[in-house]
């Protein structure tokens, strides 16, 4: 889809600890769509992937995230917090496991509005209740703060990732 649905920026990297997509939010757009794919890199022992916002200086915001997710796998979980240190977490428990998802986000660049979003993401996990199962998350991402957000960061723990990310804007 093109027309009033604009690709603003995309980034890809392989075998990296993290990837920043900078200056993907701007004053032209208010409502965005983000698509990402974060896979455990070849030979890596990464166990999780996460996402964070980048502030007006390009630094990752490390606290104060509001999240509210349904988590579906063998069980149904409800996860909510106003003090999260990341959004869009995903578990990578074996070779080639990936956290793939999409997120709508409103007003990240505005410095007089809270930033709110909705994401859904999927991963295949290798040990949920003793068995391998698919896992999906659906729900709220946000920052109850009026600071300007200019980009996104995806990063892993305990190893490197292969990362693809794209950000689109809706024309007004």
């Amino acid at each position, binding site marked *: *889809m093109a027309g*009033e649905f604009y690709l603003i920026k995309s980034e890809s990297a392989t075998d990296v600890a993290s990837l920043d997509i900078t200056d993907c939010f701007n004053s032209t757009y208010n409502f965005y769509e983000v698509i990402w794919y974060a896979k455990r890199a070849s030979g890596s022992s990464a166990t999780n992937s996460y996402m964070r916002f980048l502030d007006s200086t390009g630094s990752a915001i490390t606290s104060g995230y509001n999240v*509210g997710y349904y988590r579906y796998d063998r069980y149904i979980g409800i996860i909510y917090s106003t003090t999260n240190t990341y959004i869009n977490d995903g578990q990578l428990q074996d070779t080639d496991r990936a956290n793939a998802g999409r997120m709508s986000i409103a*007003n990240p660049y505005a410095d007089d509005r809270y930033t*709110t979003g909705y994401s859904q993401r999927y991963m295949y996990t290798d040990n949920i209740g003793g068995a391998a199962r698919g896992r999906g998350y659906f729900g709220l991402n*946000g920052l109850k703060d009026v600071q300007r957000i200019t980009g996104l960061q995806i990063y892993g723990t305990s190893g490197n990732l292969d990362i693809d990310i794209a950000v689109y804007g*809706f024309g*007004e």
Partner: protein
Amino acid sequence: MAGELNLVSSTTVTSDVASVTLTGIDTTYDIYKVLITNARGNNTSANSWRMRWIVGGSPETGNNYFTQWESHNAVSNFEWNGFATDYRYSGNTEMYIGDGSSDTGECYNANINLYKAYDNDSEARFDIEQHSTNSGGNLIAAKGGGYRKAQQICTGVQIYVASYSIASGYFGLYGYNYS
């Protein structure tokens, strides 16, 4: 143009209006989309956003609107199966499209797809992804959908906030095709 998102009509509210009407739905596109950003009511208590179909040039105020819903927040267990019983089962005179408060830092944002609106052989329906702040000042996000149990040609939508006026916001109607 095939596959593209095309702007049909839009309005930017900068002073109080009772409602916003977006028209231009016809046979040109398979699916229409309503995008609402930075919308605020004219009172900090304005919170509950609503929508009606435009039928025969006027908002359809008859009964038989149904809305189904789940919402997520950061401070408590979530709601699901609709905002209120009468929105789910009994039909209503309007469609609920989410909470969105209007205090400092707050606003209402929504991405709504409209299906079979201009089709008198089908019941026009919508799905919605919406995020904002609720009346308690908590960030919320929600997904849902609804329809009016009637086969009628809908040429647009009317959007308003219950009990108050709309003070600001962008309201756009777009169209796109399956291929």
